[in-house]
Every structure is written in C-alpha cells, then in structure tokens.
C-alpha cells in the first residue's frame, strides 16, 4: 500500500515506560539522530526520584520528551503530539498531558490484568473507549520483539529488554530518520557482546520495517532541517555544558581546574562528567560532605587552581559558612547551584527557582557575591566561562544558578572556536616589592599570590583584616572600610557585564522580565504572539548581582513589568527593593517549568485580554 508523507514544522514526542524499560536511552538515541538530520531540538527527561520503583507501578514511570522542528526550538514542548506508552502505568501518567488528537503508540502486550491493576485502571483503556479522543495505534511490541529474536540463544529476559529498540525503530520510520546512527552506537556499546548487539540491531530494523510494511501506519511525517547558523554543533544537557564550560575556562586561563564536590541530585552529573577529563589535568575531589566540597575548593583557590564546587539547594545551605570565608579571603571560587524543589529534601528531581534569595543573601554578615543564572542548556557552557572569568578577575566567589530543568534538558550547542571564547587572564603576583595581600587595584581587587612564590609568604583567613596590609584588625573604622570595599568590588563587576537587551519595542505597555531557565518558554510565547498585535517586550537577566547597569532605565520605560518565575516572587522582590518599581508577578511552584501557553495566556490577561 502507499503511504502518504506529511510535512510538519515541529513535533513533540514523549517516550514513557517503566524506569527499567530504557526510555532515557531510547530518547537520547532519537535525539542524536534528530540532531544529525539537522532539526533544532530541545529535550527533557522526567524520571522518578526512586531508582527502581516497583515494576509497572505509577510511581515507576520514566519519561523522555523531545521537541524538534524545522524552526527555532526553545522548549521541550508543552504537550506531546505522540506518546509511546510501554505499559498501562506509562499511559495513565502521561495521557493527561497530550494534545487533543495526539497519537498514542501502545505496547498492547503489557496491558494484562496485573499491569492494569498496578496502573489502577478499573477497565482496560484500550477497550473502554476512554481514549476515543486520540489516535491509538496498538502494537504487540513485546511479542514482535520476541519473534524477531526467536533463533537467538539469549534468555527471555534479555530478549524482552530489546523491545525499546523496536519502538525506536518504529519512530525512526514514522519521522523518516535514518537508523544507522543508532546501529553504529550499538556497535560501540556492545562490541564485546556480539549476540546482544545482534539482538538490538535486529529489533531496531524490525521496528523500522514494521512501520513500512504493516497497514496500521498510513502516514509518515517529514520535519525539514532547521535553518541554524552555520557551524559545528553537538547536543548538550545543562550539566554536561557546565562541565565542558569549566574545562574550556581552565584551558583558556591556563590554570588547572579543581572541583570539590559531594553527590547530590540534580547536580551529580557535573562531578561525574568532570571526573572523565583527567587528561585535561582536571582534579575532581569527591569529598566527605558538602562542606568539605567547598572548603577543599577554597584551599585549591588559595593554591592557584580554578576552583569550583557544585551542589543543589540543601548543599548550598551547608556551604554557606564557607562561602563567607571565600568572601573574606577574596579568593576566586565558583559555586554552581543546580536548583531543585525545596525546602529540605523537597522535590529532588524536579525544578524550581527558589534559591535566588539564598544565593543573594544566604550568608551571615555583609557578604556580597556575584550571582549569575543560565538561561538554557547550551547557555550553561557560555555562562560557566563568564563565571570563571569574573571570579578570577575580581577575586570573588560567584554563584552560578542553573536548575533541574536545565541540568537534564538538552539542546544543540554551537561550538565556538577557542579564540572566540572570552579571555580569562590570570596574573599571579610574583613581585615582592610593594606586595601587600590586601592592596587593591582600580577595581578594588586584591592580588592573587599563591604558595610556592618566594618572598610573598603571607597569611589570610576569616578574621577581619587591616586594609591593604592584611594583618588581623579589630579596628571599628577599618572594619567598615573593608565591608564597603568588598561591596564596591562586587558593584564594579557591573563594568564587565553587557547591557541588558530588550527584545521587541524599547518602551511601552508591558515588559516581561525573566531570569534563568524560563527563557525558552517565554521566548516561544513571544514568538507566538509576534503577529497578533500584542504590545509586549522581553528582557532576560543572566547577570543578577550586580544587575546590568541599564536595567533601571529599561524598567522606567514600561508601564507594566511582569516577572514570571518558578518561586513565590523572589526576583520581583529584588527588583522592587532595588529600583522602587512596582512589578506584576507570575509564579508557579509545581516542580515544573512554565508551559508556553501559560506565559501566552498570562500576557494576554495582563494586556486586558485584547490586542493592545
């Protein structure tokens, strides 16, 4: 029979199954192939906090969402067009998120009494008509997989494990993508297990051919390559991009990278990733606790390394006292906080932006630090270089905020040439003449004099220092001078950071002011509203302390300022107190980021429900 090919601009696909079903792997393979054929894309995994919740249960469902298209893609997509549900629980958990008329590909073999009961279905949804609003495609995924592997000597369990590749093959057929990238990947993955390799490759082909030959599938979809800027790309998650960014910063600055770290969700991948790069001279110290993670980094900074520590909210709380020490000793240090739902253990695998106050103010005493926030997975690379540059240039701790959504989400990163990266100059003090540990330059930055340098032996620490000289001083006037010096030094960072850019009209009715990972959703919402006549502009903050110097002027030029954020209004409070400007809040604290539609609707609501 002939199959029709329908061209579409963008598609959102969600793979969902048991946490042992290999959905993350399936999703990342689909992502790699999709990137290779030239689509723009954005991905987001969604997995439970439990490693292996009981098989078939609702809490054990693991998902991977991919949004790809021929245009500019900024988010993993609000609602899937296609759901691949490997079992009843996966269907139940995900069906509510689907677009009307979405396609659901189900593994019918898993819809037995036991699994239906585990998924808390009273009746079989495939038979009771409850899915009538969707295009349901039933596939005997398990059976077809087993049949394809009949003659192999693998155990039944091993054979069944291949079924995710049947689903993947089918999706490759449906979206007209080549299977050879995954075939090749399988070769490298299983080169020591020829039979497992054969099984997976065979099942992948079987899935693809199943789409081609069966009559269930009548339509294939074509998503043309996106018009991305020329260059070489790779797909990166936010955590991966942070790791790459700091290695690049180490290469750019010429000093070795030191990471002091303690495992914590969702930040551990930064430690894991960096630990692979020993041939770059990277030292990853997996410490006994969060405090040792930051304290060892402070020691390494004192000794001349590019020192960083990574964590999430609870870990940042533990590191707080030590960050105060880094403020006092004026050493370069980057603290990466991959924010998650809090307080306390909260929602460890979910996203939130509620550590902003902690980053800004969570220390005793007057202890200003630089605060930056990444806007997308790929931006995690560039902002890490910025963080390293500022920390070194200003001899200061820098808190870099990312979040769970950025950490696990992925998108293509355009690879810059080495020469295009920001310059990071390191000048260790070696001159004995006129050396004082707290003698400041025009930006109020003190010298970095590291152990091993003859003639510059000196002592620093947490006690207040005599201005310039650096010896202990309890003098009241001196203390105030030093407090002000430390504050003014951070203010001077403003000279380094670019002006804030307003997207859209430069003045008018409504400005959306955002920060961090909400960038993508807002950007897509703005684009959707572009030709609807709504008068709205957008500015996105990557530099939070200090703010860009033109922010105050921008705020004055708009009648209303709306701040969407994944907390109860922390940035809104910051803006109000800094600029005495009333702002509108749009807050969501559900462990999930904004949907594009939520932003659009809010903008329309603020504008009075009309087109301006």
């Amino acid at each position, binding site marked *: 029979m002939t199959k029709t090919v329908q061209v579409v601009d963008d598609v959102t696909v969600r793979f969902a199954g048991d946490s042992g079903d290999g959905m993350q792997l399936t999703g990342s393979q689909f992502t790699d192939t999709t990137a290779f054929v030239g689509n723009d894309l954005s991905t987001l995994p969604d997995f439970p906090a439990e490693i292996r919740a009981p098989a078939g249960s609702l809490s054990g469902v693991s998902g991977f969402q991919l949004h790809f298209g021929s245009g500019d893609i900024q988010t993993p997509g609000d609602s899937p067009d296609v759901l691949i549900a490997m079992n009843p629980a996966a269907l139940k958990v995900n069906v509510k998120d689907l677009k009307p008329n979405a396609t659901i590909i189900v593994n019918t073999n898993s819809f037995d009494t036991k699994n239906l009961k585990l998924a808390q279905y009273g009746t079989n949804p495939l038979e009771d008509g409850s899915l009538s609003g969707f295009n349901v495609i039933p596939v005997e995924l398990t059976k077809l997989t087993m049949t394809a592997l009949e003659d192999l000597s693998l155990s039944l369990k091993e054979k069944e494990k291949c079924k995710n590749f049947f689903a993947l093959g089918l999706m490759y057929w449906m979206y007209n993508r080549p299977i050879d990238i995954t075939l090749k990947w399988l070769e490298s993955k299983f080169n020591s297990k020829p039979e497992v390799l054969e099984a997976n490759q065979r099942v992948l082909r079987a899935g693809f051919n199943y789409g081609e030959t069966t009559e269930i599938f009548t339509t294939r979809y074509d998503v043309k390559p996106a018009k991305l800027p020329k260059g070489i790309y790779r797909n990166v998650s936010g955590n991966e991009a942070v790791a790459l960014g700091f290695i690049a910063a180490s*290469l750019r600055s010429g000093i070795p990278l030191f990471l002091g770290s303690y495992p914590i969700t969702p930040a551990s991948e930064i430690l894991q990733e960096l630990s692979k790069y020993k041939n770059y001279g990277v030292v990853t110290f997996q410490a006994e606790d969060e405090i040792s993670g930051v*304290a060892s980094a402070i*020691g390494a900074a004192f*000794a001349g390394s590019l020192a960083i520590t990574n964590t999430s909210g609870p870990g940042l709380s533990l590191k707080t006292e030590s960050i105060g020490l880094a403020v006092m000793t004026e050493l370069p240090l980057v603290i990466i906080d991959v924010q998650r739902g809090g307080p306390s253990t909260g929602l460890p695998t979910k996203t939130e932006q509620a550590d902003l106050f902690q980053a800004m103010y969570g220390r005793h005493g007057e202890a200003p630090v630089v605060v930056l926030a990444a806007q997308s997975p790929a931006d995690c690379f560039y902002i890490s270089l910025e963080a390293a540059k500022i920390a070194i240039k200003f001899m200061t701790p820098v808190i870099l905020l990312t979040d769970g959504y950025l950490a696990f989400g992925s998108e293509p990163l355009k690879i810059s040439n080495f020469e295009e990266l920001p310059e990071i100059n390191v000048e260790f003090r070696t001159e004995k003449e006129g050396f004082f540990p707290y003698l400041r330059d025009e930006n109020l930055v003190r010298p970095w004099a590291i152990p*091993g*340098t003859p003639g510059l032996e000196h*002592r620093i620490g947490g006690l207040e220092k005599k201005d310039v000289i650096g010896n202990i001083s309890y003098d009241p006037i001196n203390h105030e001078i030093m407090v002000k010096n430390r504050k003014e030094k951070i203010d001077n960072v403003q000279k380094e950071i670019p002006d804030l850019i307003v997207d859209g009209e430069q003045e008018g009715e409504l400005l959306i002011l955002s920060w961090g990972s909400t960038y993508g959703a807002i950007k897509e919402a703005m684009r959707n509203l572009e030709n609807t006549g709504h008068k709205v502009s957008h500015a996105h903050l990557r530099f939070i302390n200090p703010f860009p110097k033109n922010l105050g002027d921008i705020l004055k030029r708009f009648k209303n300022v709306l701040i969407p954020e994944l907390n109860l209004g922390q940035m809104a409070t910051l803006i109000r107190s800094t600029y005495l400007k009333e702002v509108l809040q749009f807050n969501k604290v559900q462990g999930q980021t904004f949907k594009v539609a939520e932003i659009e609707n809010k903008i329309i609501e603020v504008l009075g429900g009309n087109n301006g």
Partner: protein
Amino acid sequence: MDNKINELVPEVKYTAKDFASDLDVKWCPGCGDYSILAQVQRTSPDFGEKRENMVWVSGIGCSSRFPYYMNTYGFHGIHGRAAAIATGVKLANPKLQVWVATGDGDMLSIGGNHFIHACRKNINMKILMFNNRIYGLTKGQYSPTSEKGMITKSSPYGTVDFPFNPIKLATGSGATFVARSLDRDPKHLQEVISKAAKHKGLAFIEVFQNCPIFNDGVYFPLTEKETKADNVIFLEHGKPLLFGANKDKGIKLDGLDPVIIDLNDGKHSVNDCWVHDEFDDNPTRVFLLARFTDISGFPTPIGVFRQFNKPTYDEEYVKQIAQIKEKKGVGTYEKLMLSNHTWEVN
C-alpha cells in the same frame, strides 16, 4: 614501598627566626601553645623544604591562630574545616608541604568528619592537634576529649559523656603516622615533629597542651618532674616499655592484656617486657597502647605509636592524571568539544 624522604635541601640555611612572622603572639601568658610554636619554629629549618613551599592551615580556636605566627604561607580557616581546606591546597599543588594546626574541639568535634576522611585517604599532610581537653577561645566549655565527669562552664554538674581517644580514632581511621607528645617536653616534641615532617602520608600528632586559664594542670602529673617518671612511658622503637624514675617498671603483654611488672620483684626481667615496634603493620598493638590512658594506674604512652607507608591520595591522583594523559593524550579544546557526536550545519 618507596619511602624516600624529601631530600630537597634549601639553598638558604634557615634558622628558627626565619619562621617567625612579624605579628605579636597573643596567647595567654603561660599557654602551652607558646612552646609548640617554638618547637615548630626550631625544627622547621630541618624540614628540608623551602619556606615558600610550606603552608600552615588551621580552623578556629586558640590553636588555630598558629598560622599567623609562622612566616610561611598560612590560611586561618573556619571552625572544623582545616583538614578540608588543607586537602584542597595539597591536591591543587602536591609539591607543597602542608601542615594543619588545630585543637581537640576544632578537629574532633566540629571537624571530626574531615579528620577521619583525611586519615582514610592518607592525604600527605601533617596534623598537629593541640589537646587541652577544653574549649578555650569560647571560654571554658567541655570538649570531646574532656574526661567524663569534668566540671566546666557548660557542665556545672560534671559531664556525662565519654571522651574520644584521639590515638585510637586516628589509627582506626587509617592515619599512617600516629604520635603523641607534651608541650612541656620541648626536646621530645621536637623529635616527634621532625619525624612527622619526614613521613610521607597523613601524620597525626596529638600534643597534650596546658590551658592555664580554663583547664590548668590537667597534664601536670605527666609533665611535672615529681610525677612524670611514674606516669609517662616513652615509646622508642626497638626498646622495651619501661617507666619509673629508675626504669624499674615495665609493661608486658599477657595475651591481649597489658600488665605492669616490677623488675625488682625477682620474678620479672626486662626480657619480659613488650618491645615497641614503631613500624608494626598490624594496628592491634597501637590500640592496646592507646588503651593505657583508659586503664587506671597505667602510664601514658608518649612518642610515635606507629608509622607505616601506603600510597598517598595526592601521589595516586597525580599518577592517575599522568596515566590518563599518556593513554588519551593531553586534552585540547578541539578534542574536548569535538569528542562527542557532532554535526555540521552549512
């Protein structure tokens, strides 16, 4: 195991004075810390290390003011974190000789976790722990080494908790050099510090230190002339365990129980005594020695309980980096960014 002592000889011959910073020392008059500082400054010229390569790191407490008085690189940290900060210094530059000055509260209470893990990892650094069995800087609360029942400002009716035995703790945690000395025995303290300086691996020295203000005299039975001989037993490698003014009392081992013997009783001779083996692989005897302070009537052992060699964390790390560089080639930006799956957009 390669146990070469650092043989680097500085070009300049230092004296004790070269290690004194220009700050006035501000401990209380009569504090045992003065003696410890003096012994460190006296022995430092013989460490075989250039002054600029020495780093003293500390936490918080009276003892932790120590780095300010040493004319080396110094880092006065925050409460309990000295071992963690020092670890970072050492890993960032393994060529540095890293020392930690700390107290019983700083290292065993708030810093306990960092202490045991530094020992476990065998970070090549030296920890000098001033044990005065009291919180001095905060003015007199009991510490994790205060004897049970001790009356302090925070235990007016006596403490009900049991103290740590630092020698057992360090040994159990894997420290590769464990020793004890006395603030009031300068010569002995110098010997122990010099030995620790030459040890490759984590060296832990517990120094019994008098706090004249909040815990005055707690060690006088061990340090004063009239009582010292009967209460202290000096550990010397290869020598029998003897004590007493006339060295006529000894320790013998009865199974796993140490027993005090009288060499004048006609039944025992020096040949019955336990002979100290500083390089014993087996830590069992260290625990038996460390227990002496818990048994009434037993002398307190002073000296090097044990030293042995195993690879240090920092040398293993350096080795691993070199191996991976050899295997994968030195990393470059191009390799970094293009190593994973990439594609080109034209």
